[in-house]
């Protein structure tokens, strides 16, 4: 069982057109996987753990929990067994076909660690495909998207509820569906990332609750927050997809994949340089305890231990069972060797014991030996902010192709609204990999999709495609201006800076070196064994950026300025009104003005050369004084009480006005 779906008919010719290269990947192969050996109403759960020693004294442990349910018709979704109820309800309520959520702390270092099995950016990331009949509109998808985010905000205790239109985009080229898009249906995709999100225990616990066995037994029992959060990188992933057979909605599979990807730094276990170990570790060392068994609901419960590359120097205690000692996987000309521990075998006989595996490095080994720099993977990405000051800067994304041949590159950038990008400054420059500086050599775009942002509403969305020659680096720069925000828009700790989410870079590798991702039609880690394909779709994330926008000094002087400005603004209205309103002077009925403004006017008139008694009439419609009067002044130039006046005999009062204007 678990055979990956048979590859498509023969290797396709490699598409040379860049715009086409990912379109060709729409996985027709998924169709075959739907005919997996799952019967109707069949539901199964698998748990897997992969341990891969990485270079630089790091260890990658990857947990994957897969629930696969052939539920058939939608009505069956009311009766869930292994699949969490929230996932089943999701499919009933929304037109979502595929959903990815990643909660990550730290950054995967491609140069030293190679490529991860699942990709994630630091912070929270979420994208989903929606598919429905022709009634599904864009705005409806938007509302479904934000509802979906709110649902998972509650389910995972993450701040996904901040996903809204100001940080969501609809990727055009970069994200490809991993379900089977039906021909007669409309498909929509939404993507959003929250780089500021901090991932912690509060996310891990609800994530574990989605598992059939919870954290009581099986591999999930190893995920203790105390140890998980002491890692250099940890990433929780959740992936849901629906696969329907023959384009019918009545014969569907829902697949929930929960992944936890951790990278341990063995040096953090050392106490001081004198007591330096030579890199031994064990499950107990990594997770604080041994394994207490397998999840009873799991169909299979296996641990894969990489034995070649960095894992070569370790001796395993206890060793894997002889028939599973060395499982070879050759993929795209690259061989990986795994030792496999089947937990069902290990815990065959009952007993109160904990299972532990130790990796022992040879004692005589010099530390310097494992300092040899690993060969970097074919494609690496970095991003940084250039320029200084709080007014403008440049976002630079650097992509290095150390493969000998040209690679097609697609880059997706989401620039938040508080940063203005200028498309005319977008440039892709290249340099040979060994040279230090970028010259003027440019790479032409093969594809450019730009959706300009809108202040406080939409982020700028940019997708670029080009062909990156071999042994070459490309630098994509775009000039940006930083916006001065309104004073209530600054988050707490305003001087920490604002985040710009990471860029997504996608490519298609011709070979499988450093490539460990699951094939699109597979759903278990072992599906990636011997999964040779014509090409391998690679997707990478860059670093996120912090920009310091012009930030006012949120201290007393600033508040004083704000208050003073408010007072000035309040005072401005009446004064402006005095200065600009047409003044009709009525007949004087009383000689003593009542309020201050009128006294002032009285004075002005006197200086105009007229006797005071004449000048200031009661209720002269200046609209200057209190609000009541100004409203009256706005309604009509004369106050209602004297509406009969202008028509009759007050023209002789007009010269007063002219005097006033002259004074101004």
């Amino acid at each position, binding site marked *: 069982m678990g055979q990956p779906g048979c590859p498509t008919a023969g290797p396709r010719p490699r598409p040379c057109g860049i715009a086409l290269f990912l379109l060709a990947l729409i996985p027709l192969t998924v169709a075959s996987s739907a005919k997996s050996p799952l019967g109707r109403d069949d539901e199964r759960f698998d748990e897997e753990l992969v341990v891969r020693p990485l270079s630089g004294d790091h260890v990658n442990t990857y947990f994957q929990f897969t629930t696969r349910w052939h539920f058939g018709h939608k009505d069956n979704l009311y009766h869930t067994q292994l699949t969490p109820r929230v996932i089943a309800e999701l499919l009933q309520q929304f037109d979502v076909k595929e959903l990815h959520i990643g909660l990550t702390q*730290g950054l995967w270092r491609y140069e030293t660690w190679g490529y991860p099995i699942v990709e994630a950016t630091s912070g929270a990331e979420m994208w989903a495909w929606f598919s429905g009949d022709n009634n599904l509109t864009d705005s409806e998808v938007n509302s479904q998207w934000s509802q979906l985010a709110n649902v998972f905000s509650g389910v995972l205790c993450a701040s996904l509820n901040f996903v809204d239109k100001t940080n969501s985009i609809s990727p055009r080229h970069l994200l490809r569906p991993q379900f089977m898009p039906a021909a007669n249906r409309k498909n929509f995709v939404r993507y959003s990332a929250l780089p500021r999100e901090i991932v912690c225990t509060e996310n891990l616990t609800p994530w574990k609750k989605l598992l059939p066995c919870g954290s009581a037994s099986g591999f999930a029992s190893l995920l203790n927050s105390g140890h998980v959060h002491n890692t250099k990188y940890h990433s929780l992933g959740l992936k849901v997809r629906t696969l329907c057979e023959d384009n019918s909605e009545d014969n569907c599979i829902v697949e929930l994949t929960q992944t936890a990807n951790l990278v341990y*730094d063995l*040096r953090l276990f050392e106490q001081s340089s004198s007591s330096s170990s030579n890199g031994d570790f064990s499950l107990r060392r990594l997770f604080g305890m041994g394994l207490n068994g397998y999840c009873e609901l799991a169909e299979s419960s296996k641990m894969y231990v990489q034995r070649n590359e960095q894992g070569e120097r370790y001796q395993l205690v206890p060793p894997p069972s002889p028939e599973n000692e060395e499982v070879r996987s050759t993929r795209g000309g690259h061989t990986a060797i795994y030792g496999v521990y089947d937990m069902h075998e290990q815990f065959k006989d009952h007993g109160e014991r904990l299972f532990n595996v130790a990796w022992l490095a040879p004692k005589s080994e010099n530390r310097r030996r494992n300092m040899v720099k690993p060969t970097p993977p074919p494609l690496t990405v970095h991003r940084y902010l250039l320029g200084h000051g709080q007014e403008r800067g440049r976002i*630079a994304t650097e992509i290095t192709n150390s493969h000998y041949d040209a690679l097609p590159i697609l880059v997706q950038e989401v620039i938040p609204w508080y940063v203005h990008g200028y498309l005319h400054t977008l440039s892709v*420059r290249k340099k040979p990999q060994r040279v230090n500086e*970028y010259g003027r050599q440019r790479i032409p775009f093969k594809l450019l999709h730009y959706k300009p942002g809108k202040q406080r509403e939409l982020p700028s969305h940019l997708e670029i495609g080009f062909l990156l020659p071999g042994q070459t680096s490309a630098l994509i720069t775009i000039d940006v201006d930083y916006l001065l925000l309104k004073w209530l828009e600054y988050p707490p700790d305003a001087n920490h800076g604002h985040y710009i989410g990471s860029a997504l870079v996608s490519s298609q590798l011709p070979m499988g070196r450093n490539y460990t991702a699951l094939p699109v039609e597979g759903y278990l880690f072992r599906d990636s064994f011997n999964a040779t394909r014509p090409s391998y779709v690679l997707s990478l994330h860059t*670093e996120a950026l*912090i920009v310091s926008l012009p930030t006012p000094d949120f201290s007393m002087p600033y508040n004083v300025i704000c208050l003073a400005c408010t007072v000035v603004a309040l005072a401005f209205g009446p004064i402006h009104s005095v200065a600009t309103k047409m003044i009709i002077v009525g007949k004087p009925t009383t000689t003593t003005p009542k309020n201050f403004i009128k006294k002032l006017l009285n004075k002005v008139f006197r200086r105009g050369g007229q006797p005071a008694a004449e000048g200031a009439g009661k209720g002269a419609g200046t609209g200057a004084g209190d609000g009541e009067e100004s409203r009256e002044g706005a309604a009509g130039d004369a106050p209602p009480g004297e509406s009969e006046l202008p028509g009759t005999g007050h023209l002789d009062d007009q010269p007063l006005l002219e005097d006033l204007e002259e004074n*101004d």
Partner: protein
Amino acid sequence: MGLLSDPSISTQSKLVDGLARHVRKVCTVLYVAGVAWFFCLALPEFNHGTYLSENALSPGLVYPEIRVDANRLAIQLLEELQRERKDHLSTTPHAWIAAKMNEFGLETHTHNYTLRYPFGGGKEYHGKNIYGILRAPRIASTEGIVFTAPYRAASSVHTDISPSVPLLLAFADFARRKNYWAKDLIFLVTEQEQLGMQAWLEAYHDGDRDLDVSKAYLRPGNLPARAGSLQAALNIEVQDLEIDYVDVRIEGLNGKLPNLDMFNLVQRIMAREGIASGYKQTPRKKRRHSKSLFETNLRQMLAMLATQSSGVPNGNHGLFHRYRIDALTIAAHRRATHATLKGQPGSAAVPLLKAIEGIARSLNNLLERFHQSFFFYVIVNNDRYISIGDYMPALVALVACAFVKAYLMWSTLPSTEAGGELDTEERDADTDVEAEKFELPYGSVLIYLTATLLIGFLCNVLPLQQYFLEIPMGAAPLTTSVLSFLSLIGFILPFVVVLPPGGLELLHVAFLLIYGCSLIVIGLLNFALGFFVAVLTVPLVIALETKEDTSRSTLRHAIRLLALILNPMMIVYVIVLAMTFYQFPELPLQKILLRAATAAMDASAYGLIDSVLYGNFLYFVISTVLLPLWIICWTLALSKRRDYADYVEFEESPASSPQPQSPSQAKVKTS
């Protein structure tokens, strides 16, 4: 509203007239008040005790964990480095440093940069910095802190600070095994003093710049790896692992300072570790009670301002400030005697390592960039400071002289006697035509001002022209000759160009306004420079008089002499002379004069190079702001007037020495 344009408020009020008669007294009072205020700041009543404003720093909250094994590692590394230094007399042992960083598990990179020296035929120098990044477990490389140690080759003329590198590496090894870092730590070893630092910073922030090879002087290249936005930096200069005291250096480029919180943090942590540390710390002196608190405070203040005024950073930290990265240098000095040694020699550097750890952990706690506390301050004592609000009044009082005088001059200008509106000349022209006796020569004054500014601009530009650079001449003689030539033009200008009647008065007003504005601007950017220039030049400005009826010719001569002495080049020479005299008191006077002359020439060349490479604006200020002002000042001091007698004299000896006109000649009025 008639409040702002009320014609009844006239410039010709009695008050103004009265003040105009006593303008010198008023200005002198202001001057004295400003200087007195500055001196008062040294009194404890006028300055404040320092405090930590940023709560996130919480210095000393954690117990230092670094132990004696780190010190042992530092000693071992130092021994290795000393061996390496024997093979690398004039270069940096890059390979050794990189290997050590790799061994400690840092992500190690090298950074290459090129300097094309503009003078003397244009040589090229290549430099290389090594840096290792400790990727913090708690962050996705969005923020970083820099720890730098300059490396000086064995053949360097400066003090040997090679133990800084082992100390840095020992701390890196310790830090690598901790999982609490929430900011990437960059450990950087630079070479060639500040040039390496500058190149690294430029590469970090402007690495993509496509520089023209023929035009750019410093080509920083690009960095292979970065660590997000840099929050703070600590530069470590250690002379020996056994230290006597730590001097905390804060003055940066153009007199910029790090946040006061950062200085306080370092002071607190040093105090906790029991290290004698302070601003401008000197070896423990014998207690002398003769010096009062006031005197020590004042000395400290003046020393700080003197360092700031040149705008040259006194350590690699100073270059960070331009990028809004707060940075300072801890310069640990070698213990002179072993008499006071307390602990074991094997644990001598532990307090310093603990201090570095404490600083690093406090900076690591920072949630926001340094933004609280003060960026503009003067340190009076290690724990007392003067904020910008307290010291600015001194400068404002000095500069106010110029503005008060300008206003009074303006109100007594000949054309305004009839009471016309000043700033609305044209509009008033048709209302009261009969008021105008003669038009003020705005045009010629403007042209004259432009000419002087042009001379200043040429000072800035000419020495770097390709044509001049190709002359096989050293930087110092070239710059000096260009500067002297242009100053000479400025010197001669008032003899050649004589302004029409009323022009001098107008020029005087313009001079006072430009002078006041430029001093305020300079003072805001670099208080020390502005204040010193003001203290030196304001007396001349007060004394300067263009009225021709002053019959006191001795005063007039004195003013001219003073104006001549206050030539910027002359002042530079005098300052250098004083420093030479202070440094080499044993030399005969003639030699000192000569040595000072060469030193002054070098200083002007260094000023130019600093302005080109680092963006130091001292040269710009002197050549483009102060020199034109001096030319105008000189013109005013001469007070050449256009009348027949002058023309006759002019024809006879156009380039004669600045003989003053006789009072009788001056009395002849043109109109």
